[in-house]
């Protein structure tokens, strides 16, 4: 242990707020690193063909991209410690180009690792109880959850114990590691859905039945990609003890009957669509009834063991309102803007949830430099019980900050260009890497995000526009989730030129909706202008307190088509 590690090890005695590996977890992840090291060696000496190696490396998060390999590291249910964040920064410096990219699925991507270095990177991750297991490949992917888990005011139950339970169950599953296609599970335990559970292969919503017992609504077959679908409920209430057995039943039906003839029709959403919800539910229930559920009968004991790790940190008893915080807001307009946009109410009086935007004006959505990662780690250590979260909007969350500390935290963040007050606003754009990095992309997406961000760089105007999600994908695979953006942008290639389709009305929450196409595609240079026209229509028509999405629902798509027509008529800026 070097001096640096010791400094942080001192905090290891602090009560845990997240899962800690025991000897079994450590041995398991270590075995996966050793196995992967051997797999790389066997690929290089020819024992494994490239076709054989590809699924093995993918199952360990390693993609071959346009320019280089990309390593995707899992941040299970989006929770990480300051120590883990520091390690991510070290890896970025040592084996990458000094930065990393936080994704919409609570993962971190390194864009420039070398194949031969990846076993060492994985070992460095394993040291801090992290891995890249099943962040890619046709298997059960990293399980995601609400980024406000454990601290949200509207929460029924912290979804993270369930997610950790599923992380373990899904790791190197003997039967479900070679599925027709990837399989994504998300868990939410709050009234408001911040985990997009209706757009996952399986979405789980923790809630109580009429007797007050906790269980799950099981939603199946949601997804984006080429054919977007809103997930459908197969069980309104599943008793907790049956969770694993029921998931095994769903996965077994999918593994056997999911299509394998066409990778674009292989997700479970297509099986649901083609088989019909009623018939598929019957098949799942038949399998569930036929299987031996005894091996799963001890679930609850293990669940309680895991739940013990997610205890609340030692909060102080504080007044609900911090005088120091209010005073700082009055004195500093920039801080006040940050406080009104990036700070969310916490369930404990005197505390706050802080969203740190990784969307600086004109920046690359989700990117953080190693220095910024270290500042985030320091911020968590000084002001937030050493804990951080990654949101599916590609931002970082500090889940437990004393209101008294918010001003000092803001100054620390501001010094590292991490205080952009735009969480949830028009420049808080979700974007895939697009043609600049990705081998699948048909158009650029990052430069489009940057152009929109620049166009709306006036933060006061952004606040006036209010809550609005713009999501951009650089191809129909929809990694930028454009289908569920209130404004979605899809980059395509048309006769050798980039063309961008705009959709309106997408909604990732429980009121789930897939965006509707506004009209013909526009060229890259016009995207920001069309969006500005849409915003002008909205500002003119909106009622008091009405969000863009609500106004669109009330007014209808036709009212917004004008934005495109006007653009088409004279092509000039409006």
């Amino acid at each position, binding site marked *: 242990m070097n001096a640096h590690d010791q400094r942080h090890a001192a905090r290891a005695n602090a009560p845990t707020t997240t899962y800690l590996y*025991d000897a*079994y*977890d450590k*041995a*398991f992840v270590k*075995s996966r690193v*050793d*196995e992967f090291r*051997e*797999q790389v060696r*066997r690929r290089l000496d*020819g*024992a*494994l*063909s490239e*076709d*054989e190696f590809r*699924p*093995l490396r993918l199952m360990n998060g390693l993609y071959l991209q346009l320019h280089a390999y990309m390593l995707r590291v899992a941040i299970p249910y989006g929770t990480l410690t300051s120590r883990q964040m520091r390690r991510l920064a070290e890896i970025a410096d040592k084996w990458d180009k000094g930065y990393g990219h936080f994704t919409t699925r609570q993962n971190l991507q390194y864009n420039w690792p070398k194949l031969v270095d990846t076993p060492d990177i994985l070992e460095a991750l394993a040291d801090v109880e992290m891995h890249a297991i099943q962040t890619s490949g*046709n298997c059960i992917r990293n399980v995601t959850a609400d980024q406000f888990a454990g601290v949200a005011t509207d929460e029924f139950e912290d979804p993270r114990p369930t997610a950790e339970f599923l992380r*373990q*169950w899904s*790791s*190197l*599953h*003997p*039967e*479900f*590691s*070679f*599925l027709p296609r990837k399989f994504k599970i998300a868990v939410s335990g709050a009234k408001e859905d911040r985990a997009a559970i209706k757009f996952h292969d399986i979405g789980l919503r923790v809630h109580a039945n009429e007797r007050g017992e906790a269980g799950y609504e099981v939603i199946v077959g949601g997804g984006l990609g080429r054919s977007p679908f809103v997930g459908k409920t197969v069980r309104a209430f599943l008793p907790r003890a049956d969770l694993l057995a029921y998931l095994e039943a769903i996965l*077994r039906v999918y*593994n*056997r009957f999911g299509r*394998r003839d066409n990778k674009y029709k292989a997700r479970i959403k297509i099986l649901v669509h083609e088989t019909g919800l009623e018939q598929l539910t019957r098949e799942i229930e038949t399998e569930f009834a*036929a*299987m*031996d559920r*005894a*091996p*799963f009968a*001890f679930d609850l*004991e*293990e669940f309680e*063991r895991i739940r013990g790790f997610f205890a609340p940190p030692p909060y102080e008893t504080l007044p609900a309102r911090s005088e120091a915080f209010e005073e700082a807001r009055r004195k500093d307009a920039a801080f006040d803007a940050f406080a009104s946009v990036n700070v969310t109410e916490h369930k404990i009086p005197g505390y706050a949830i802080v969203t740190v935007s990784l969307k600086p004006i004109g920046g690359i959505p989700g990117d953080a430099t190693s220095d910024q990662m270290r500042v985030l780690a320091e911020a968590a250590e000084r002001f937030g019980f050493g804990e951080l979260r990654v949101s599916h909007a590609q931002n970082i969350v500090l889940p437990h900050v004393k209101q008294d500390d918010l001003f000092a935290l803001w100054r620390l963040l501001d010094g590292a260009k991490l205080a952009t007050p735009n969480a949830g606003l028009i420049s808080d754009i979700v974007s895939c890497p697009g043609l600049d990095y990705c081998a699948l992309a048909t158009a650029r997406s990052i430069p489009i995000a940057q152009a929109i961000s620049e166009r709306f760089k006036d933060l006061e105007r952004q606040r006036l526009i209010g809550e609005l999600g713009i999501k951009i994908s650089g191809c129909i695979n929809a990694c930028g989730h454009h289908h569920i953006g209130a404004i979605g942008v899809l980059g395509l290639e048309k006769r050798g030129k980039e063309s961008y389709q705009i959709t309106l009305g997408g909604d990732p929450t429980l009121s789930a909706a897939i965006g509707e196409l506004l009209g013909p595609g526009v060229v890259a240079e016009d995207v920001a202008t069309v969006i500005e026209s849409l915003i002008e229509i909205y500002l003119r028509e909106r009622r008091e307190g009405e969000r863009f999405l609500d106004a669109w629902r009330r007014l209808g798509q036709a009212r917004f088509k004008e934005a495109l027509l006007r653009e088409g008529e004279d092509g000039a800026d409006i």
Partner: protein
Amino acid sequence: MALISEGRFIEDGWRRLAEEESLPKEGKCIVSEARLAEAIGALPSDAPLGVLLANTADPAKLAPYLSRLSLVAIAFPAPGDGRGFSLARLIRRAGFKGELRASGRLIADQATHALRCGFDTIEIASDIAARQNAAQWSAALSAYGAFYQQGYASRAAILAERRKAPA
């Protein structure tokens, strides 16, 4: 083809019958699912008999024959096609106690997946056997001490180990 059991290459005492071949009087033979009823009718009831299934086979249709069979082989057309793992589970669940064989393009890295789903032996294509020697198949079996899942064969489940360990 090469046959692997417990991380070693072994002799195969079974012979796969070609579709046009007539049923032999003796020896251990494996027939296709289409010829299963014919073979059961034609062979003495104590003649060792095996069947090769496509990974899309319906285990319910096979259930009446399971007690008569000494071997069930399931085809793996490609390493990425995991249907055979679920089919193996279902055939074990239906009570099959004989040799369950994975047959086709599995690689050493999938050896424990196969064993845990209930397979006893793995039969692989010669080109894979030429690249992946016994050492690799054997090493694959000891790559992990324990796995997380319960209710699967061949290896201790971490949850069970945790419960045994003193708190």
